[in-house]
């Protein structure tokens, strides 16, 4: 969530000179650590293999763009030097003419010094004396427009080239990144489709979602922004260092002295801010959890009058969040002003020291001007570079979470030349089936049943008896640990999964509808269904009637909150969907528990129609269904403990009989009362 909503700013990359904002933003990364850093990074880079050439272009263009930008300050320094020298020469020319009145032909600088009075020459600084010595008095000193014009044009050219290279680099990188991320998302999604259902029982939806969106987004950001930034920062540091050395080794030394201070500040602040940031994230999670829980339980809180308790707990978490929040924010915002201060001190030292050196003629004005620019271009990349590790860590951690999904063991693929049953009859046989959700906890030890086409099998048992397990096995959502399940005489593991699942129609406990129209949701049952067939199915499931009372009829969009459609109606739509799919075998998973009495009655009629001629497994709650079933499977704690018809089981006088009799207790009571 936090990554998704990260503000995207219009700020250009830091140019020379101080400005608001800065590289502090990237410090806001949580201190998540990858378990296998190098391995993950290597694997992530593997994604870029196919675009090797493009990556090479990006690298080269980044380096060129940075280099061209780095040359300009020194050239512009030459511009300043040239103009300043003209200014100084003019004032010297004027003083000389002031003293001599008229300048003699062929006067040299040395002669001029000798002509000037002692009082003037004594106070003259080295650099001015040097100017005087190299002066030509034959003409009034003019600004060297051709020379400075060339400088200006060269700089403009360099800037333009740098911009073009930068553009090409960003443009290519954008394509690479987006394509890579697109591929990665699809890859994860495809993987999700190949994973067994047990995977979905292991991870929460939120976790999976966050990996596909937030984590991939983090990777995308690193590829898009950080990589080029890191490279250009490194190049810039080296290039600037070379330029500075070429101007003045002494001043370079001064700048380098500020370096450890800046690195120290950056690392200390980053360390502290990560600690606070992690706490902040944790408290944010806590408060969001509390809010979600309290809002969902609003009715209960109101009914039991526990508003104060809810608010009290909220206040405690909120206070902790506040403390962690301002601390993490404050500490991470320290980087900018502190490095800025160190930077300014360095800048000042350069100005003062440079100024003093220039009066001795060791460095010229242009050198100082250029140097001040370089010193700024030097520190900010350093701050960036010290943060590289954090960014890479966070990225590796994100990539690791994505790879974790990609490395999950997949559903066993269909066998080579797996069979297909074109016209399923609905014979179902369980032969010595052994199953447990984990191999060391076997639930079903030896299950044997034989079902003829068109029979109804009622599955009964107390809550939590594992009645959905049978569904999981029939549809091959889980693999069995031993024995065989046969449909029309064929082992289901020898069948194509798509063929197997196509034989079933099911109505699950939670009516799953997707964001789309009612028509689309019903049509989900069969790909090529016509409008008439859809409406026919809707009529059978008693959907048609209420749909027609809706303003938009079948075009009513079922949204996430689906406030326009009741739970019972949703259930009806899923039944219509099953009707449309016209399956050989039907699985009704407590299908009507959300539809109540009168509606249930209507559904019952439709169900009976639907069940006719089809093998039906019904996780039953209704006694009439159970009593009319051809076979009753009684489940307890995941195992089938009894099986047979109603009268068989009553005769056995076992668990089923007990269950059945307890049902009668209510009826008996009312009769005796």
């Amino acid at each position: 969530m936090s990554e998704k909503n990260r503000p995207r700013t219009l700020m250009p990359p830091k140019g020379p000179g101080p400005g608001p904002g800065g590289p502090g933003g990237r410090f806001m990364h949580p201190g998540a650590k990858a378990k296998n850093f190098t391995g993950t990074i290597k694997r992530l880079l593997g994604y870029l293999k196919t675009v090797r050439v493009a990556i090479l272009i990006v690298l080269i263009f980044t380096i060129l763009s940075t280099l061209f930008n780095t040359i300009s300050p020194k050239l512009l320094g030459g511009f300043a030097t040239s103009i300043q020298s003209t200014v100084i020469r003019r004032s010297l020319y004027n003083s000389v003419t002031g003293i001599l009145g008229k300048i003699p032909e062929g006067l040299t600088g040395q002669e001029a010094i000798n002509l000037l009075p002692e009082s003037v020459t004594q106070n003259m600084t080295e650099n001015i004396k040097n100017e005087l010595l190299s002066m030509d008095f034959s003409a009034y000193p003019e600004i060297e427009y051709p020379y400075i014009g060339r400088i200006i044009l060269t700089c403009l050219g360099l800037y333009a080239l740098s911009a073009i290279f930068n553009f090409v680099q960003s443009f290519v990188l954008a394509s690479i990144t987006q394509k890579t991320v697109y591929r990665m998302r699809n890859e994860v999604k495809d993987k999700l489709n190949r994973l067994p259902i047990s995977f979905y029982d292991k991870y929460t939806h939120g976790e999976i979602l966050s990996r596909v969106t937030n984590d991939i987004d983090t990777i995308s950001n690193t590829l898009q922004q950080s990589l080029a930034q890191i490279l250009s920062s490194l190049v810039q540091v080296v290039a600037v260092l070379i330029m500075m050395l070429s101007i003045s080794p002494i001043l370079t030394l001064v700048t380098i002295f500020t370096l450890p201070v800046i690195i120290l500040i950056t690392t200390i602040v980053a360390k502290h801010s990560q600690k606070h940031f992690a706490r902040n994230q944790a408290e944010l999670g806590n408060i969001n959890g509390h809010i979600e829980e309290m809002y969902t339980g609003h009715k209960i809180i109101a009914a039991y009058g526990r508003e104060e308790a809810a608010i009290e707990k909220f206040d405690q978490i909120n206070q902790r969040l506040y403390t962690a929040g301002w601390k993490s924010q404050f500490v991470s915002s320290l980087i900018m002003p502190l490095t800025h201060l160190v930077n300014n001190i360095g800048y000042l030292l350069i100005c003062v020291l440079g100024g003093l050196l220039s009066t001795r003629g060791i460095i010229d004005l242009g050198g100082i001007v250029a140097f001040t620019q370089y010193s700024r271009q030097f520190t900010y990349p350093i701050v960036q570079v010290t943060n590289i590790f954090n960014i890479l860590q966070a990225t590796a951690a994100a990539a690791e979470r994505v790879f974790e999904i990609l490395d999950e063991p997949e559903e066993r693929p269909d066998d080579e030349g797996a069979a297909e049953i074109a016209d399923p009859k609905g014979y179902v046989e369980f032969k010595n089936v052994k199953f447990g959700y984990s191999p060391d906890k076997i639930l079903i030890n030896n299950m044997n049943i034989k079902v003829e086409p068109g029979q109804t099998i009622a599955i009964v048992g107390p809550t939590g008896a594992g009645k959905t397990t049978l569904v999981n096995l029939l549809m091959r959502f889980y693999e069995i640990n031993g024995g065989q399940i046969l449909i029309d005489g064929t082992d289901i593991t020898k069948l194509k999964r798509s063929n197997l699942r196509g034989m079933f129609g099911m109505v699950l406990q939670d009516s799953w509808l997707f964001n789309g129209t009612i028509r689309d949701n019903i049509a989900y049952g069969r790909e090529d269904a016509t409008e008439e067939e859809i409406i026919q199915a809707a009529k059978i499931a008693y959907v048609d009637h209420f749909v027609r009372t809706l303003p938009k009829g079948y075009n009513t969009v079922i949204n996430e909150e689906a406030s326009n459609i009741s739970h019972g109606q949703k259930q009806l739509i899923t039944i219509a969907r099953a009707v449309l799919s016209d399956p050989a075998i039907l699985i009704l998973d407590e299908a009507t528990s959300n539809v109540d009495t009168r509606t249930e009655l209507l559904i019952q009629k439709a169900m009976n129609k639907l069940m006719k001629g089809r093998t039906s497994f019904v996780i039953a709650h209704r006694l009439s269904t159970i009593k009319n079933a051809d076979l009753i499977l009684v489940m307890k704690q995941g195992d089938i403990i009894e099986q047979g018809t109603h009268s068989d089981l009553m005769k056995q006088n076992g668990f089923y009989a007990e269950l059945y009799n307890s049902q009668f207790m209510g009826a008996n009571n009312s009769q005796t009362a």
Partner: protein
Amino acid sequence: MGKIIKGMGKYGWLYALSVIFVGIQSVCELILPGKMQVIIDEGITKGDNRVILKSGMEMLLFSAVIAFSAVAASLFMSISGSGFAKRMRRMVFVKVINASNNQINQFGTSSLITRTTNDITQLQQFIVMSRLAIFAPFMGLGSVIFAISEARPLYWIILLAIILLLIAVIIFFRLVSPLFLSLQKKLDRINLVLRESLTGVRVVRAFNRIDRDKLIFNNANADLTKTSLKIARIMAVMMPLAMLTMNGITVLVMWVSAGYIDTGTLNIGQMSAFIQYIMHIMFSLMAIINIFVFLPRAYVSIERIDEVLSSENEMKQTSALQKEKAKTGLEFKNVTFSFKGAEKPVLKNISFTAKPGTITAILGSTGSGKSTLIDLIPRFYDVDSGHILLNGVDISQMDISTLRRRIGLVPQQALLFTGTIAENIRYGKPDATDEEVREAARIAMALDFIESKPLKFDEPVSQGGTNLSGGQKQRISIARAIVRRPDIYIFDDSFSALDYKTDAALRKNLVKEIKDAIVLIIAQRVSTVLNADQIIVLSEGEIAGIGTHSELYSSCEVYREIVLSQLSEEEIA
């Protein structure tokens, strides 16, 4: 909006303080280039070391002030931003917790959650950013003044820079802004699509629609990628162009300055100061633009929060207490009720009496108004017309919390809270003794499974009770109601997740414990209501019949249909 400003409280002052420090920082930053100009023009050019040292010391002083102000501004900003968020979050939370059901329905739970979490975070981010933007116009204006006072002849370059920037802004808002909006929508879309295929994973596979599922995701993904790519590409053009413009303007200033320096109207130091001011102007404008990028999003959040804060709880709060007469029970007198904005009433002319010590069962089809009927009793909603009387007193004349204290509600979906099992039962009566909790669990048939847990009553319940089965949750939620020993028990289809055996045993226990309480049960199974003292059959918001099982079976057609669908003839007999 006013509520939000008021919501800042003392943090408003800290915010103001932070803005002041940003101001100090900005002014000092404007002074620095001037000092630098002195060093160049008076010091270096004239070879005066003392000027260099003096100006250098001054610059150092200002730098220290800048650093100090920046740290102070950050400190006050962090505290006021977080504090503001804290207060706003609390305001919204308290409002929602005390909201009526109508208010909750109006917004929807998930929307309220987003409003209390994401929207507040958005607002906080905006406030933190705004500190820079508030001062940016002044900083920009200050830079213009300083720049012109340093180098008057170059004023037209400032105009040029501003015009270029404005063009960039217009392009940005025309091109990029809408793209950002659509990017957000596409992100939401991919989230939605993925969430759907996660929740429906069994259905997708059962219907063999993996290809369709894949196609929908691929489309959403391609769509998202297309927009992201477009933005990244526009940015790839804009960023170098912006840099080039800035550098170009710097070079332009230098070239033009050369001419003025030639005629003696400008010094080199002034030129260099001017360049620095131009940079300041550019950055100030950028900060302002940035705020405009965020403003629409922040504004949406502000509006969404404001909607919650200004929504009114329509429930009448009365303190005038009437004395209750004899225990005559709960009476509905011609009660009619319709939901806000609905055309037709959900309940029409409902009249019945539930006497103390008796069980009243309510039966009816989807949408017949059963749940709504019982929601009226704890005053989740007030009736449109008619009266609900408890022991002769109209409940609309009662204090809501006092009324609710006398009700034990067991909702359709057993909702438990994070904590232990004991804490969840004790939710019904905070000061219940261990004995009382245990007894309630026994009556609710929950004792056996609780005792089988490793930590027994101290077994933790995770959020939403996901570590318990549906039946276990339901029994704890029943125990929670029983521990209150309320005057009125309301069971809203509370036995659906229980198997027949537990259901029957539980009801048997209940009958013994009720004594003179009023009991209302909504049920799906006829067997659950067979032994009720009276059964109310609802049909489309109206009462289709009231009576005992045998009375209704012979007189009420709707009832007979329901019974026949569930029981065979021999069971009915």
